[in-house]
């Protein structure tokens, strides 16, 4: 039987963000897969070169909505190294806390999406409902649900008070119980297990060869975690951390690794909240950054996030390179798709927790001060009527 090609994307219900796969299928089995990125390219790397460091702080946050803190953290750590400033200890604790809370919200989101991709919508609804707890918490701590804007050069912008710490501890106790339930459910519900066990196998050698990162690599038994290998914000130094891996290499292992990481994050958060040192939360930072170059890495929720920053002694960086974890995981995804069933495509893709906004970073940018093309209500209405009038509908 000859093969035929299915386009998955740029718009497809399985993809929450635009990207494009071309799957060559033979019946229900995929024989070849190809990838095209760039639908979300916003030119952030180019844009960063024309913005000051303070503006870039917020620009980096907007690379992605889910790992907003990870990118800012990575960028800020790098710039602080260039500036040569030491961050107060209380500030690093709060930075670590917000990073782990973000990981919790992202992993809960992923659990829900995994459920949704295999048609288990109830699982999706419950995990997302419980994720709201963490979103409310983040809003309470930082003033916003998604873009926390908590990082600044030399520390954090908001301090924690006693009431907030209490609320955090309560929420974490609640989420710990729920996560245990989901972990149990994910491993016992037959239809769910049937869809994830043995699906999307990625052997350890392949994970190493294709440079997979994050939970994907850890679920294949590769013990890489930037928090352990290349510690930042005090991991391993004064904040205890244990790497979580699984040998399965399939989607079930990825679910388990993420659930275990959730538990580990709860432990870290509780440790931080109970051992928060007193003191300042920020020191003054210069506006100009001395010349130099730095490679900064952070373990984002999806894996290793790496920034290369080069400064030239002015207020604006010379080059900012962002490599988000999703891009590193695409080769492994293409490998996993070959030989899989068409029905497993969405869950395999979702298995790496893809984030197109992170992957693509560039598009034409209109000068916002200039003539912004605006479609007002009436023009839109007229356009619609003309469009349908021409087609005689």
């Amino acid at each position, binding site marked *: 039987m000859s093969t035929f090609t299915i386009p998955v994307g740029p718009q497809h219900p399985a993809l929450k963000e635009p990207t494009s796969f071309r799957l060559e299928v033979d019946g229900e089995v995929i024989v070849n897969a190809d990838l095209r990125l760039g639908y979300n390219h916003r030119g952030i790397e180019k844009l960063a070169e024309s913005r000051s460091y303070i503006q870039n702080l917020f620009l980096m946050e907007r690379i992605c909505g889910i790992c907003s803190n990870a990118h800012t953290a990575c960028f800020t750590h790098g710039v602080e190294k260039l500036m040569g400033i030491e961050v107060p200890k209380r500030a690093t604790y709060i930075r670590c806390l917000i990073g782990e809370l973000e990981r919790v919200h992202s992993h809960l989101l992923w659990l829900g999406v995994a459920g949704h991709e295999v048609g288990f919508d109830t699982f999706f609804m419950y995990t997302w409902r419980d994720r709201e707890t963490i979103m409310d918490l983040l809003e309470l701590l930082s003033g916003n649900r998604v873009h926390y804007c908590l990082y600044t050069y030399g520390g954090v912008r908001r301090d924690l008070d006693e009431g907030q710490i209490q609320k955090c501890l309560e929420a974490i106790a609640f989420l710990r119980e729920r996560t245990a339930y989901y972990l149990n459910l994910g491993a016992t519900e037959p239809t769910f297990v049937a869809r994830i066990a043995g699906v999307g196998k990625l052997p350890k050698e392949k994970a*190493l060869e294709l440079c997979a990162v994050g939970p994907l690599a850890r679920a294949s038994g590769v013990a890489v975690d930037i928090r352990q290998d290349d510690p930042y914000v005090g991991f391993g130094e004064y904040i205890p951390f244990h790497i979580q891996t699984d040998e399965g290499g399939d989607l079930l292992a990825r679910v388990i690794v993420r659930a275990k990481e959730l538990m580990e994050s709860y432990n870290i958060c509780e440790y931080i909240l109970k051992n928060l040192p007193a003191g300042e939360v920020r020191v003054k930072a210069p506006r100009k950054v001395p010349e130099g170059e730095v490679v900064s890495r952070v373990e984002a929720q999806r894996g*290793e996030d790496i920034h290369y920053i080069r400064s030239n002694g002015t207020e604006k960086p010379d080059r900012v390179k962002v490599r988000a974890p999703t*891009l*590193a995981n695409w080769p492994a995804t293409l490998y996993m798709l070959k030989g899989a069933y068409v029905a497993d495509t969405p869950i395999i893709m979702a298995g790496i927790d893809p984030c197109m906004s992170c992957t693509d970073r560039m598009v034409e940018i209109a000068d916002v001060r200039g003539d912004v093309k605006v479609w007002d209500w009436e023009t839109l209405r007229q356009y619609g009527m003309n469009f349908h009038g021409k087609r005689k509908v």
Partner: protein
Amino acid sequence: MSGITAEEIKSSLEQNLHGKIEAVTVTAPRRIFLTVQPLDLPQVARFLHDKLGVTHISTITGRDTGTNVEALYHYSKDGNVVTVRVPTARDNGSIPSIISLFAGAALYEREVHDILGVHFDGNGDLRPLVLPDGWPAGVYPLRKDWTYNQEDGVLKK
């Protein structure tokens, strides 16, 4: 935290690849920078892969220095980042591909080719990855002489 340290990597590189590498510096804990000429890159990459056991390449950064273009290969091993700087010419610059050793680098090479116009010899698949269809050939947005305003309407047919 365990495993090889930055200083060990540095001394190992200096001993074994004498003459091939320049300016090996440890700028910060676990950060090594070195410069390699394009034609020596395969040998350095092979040394890193076979002798030092580096399997992971984090990314390839492309940078326009104004006079030439350089690609920075960020290899990662036990928490150390070995950044190999490979300078090449701005026009028709080319660097040997490393995808036979590091299969994961294929997309990074495509991306650098897209945005800076560096050709990677040996990578057969250098189709546009991030730039839109219909992007004119020979226009590389991340070069310093490219600005948004000048390319206004670049996509209009």
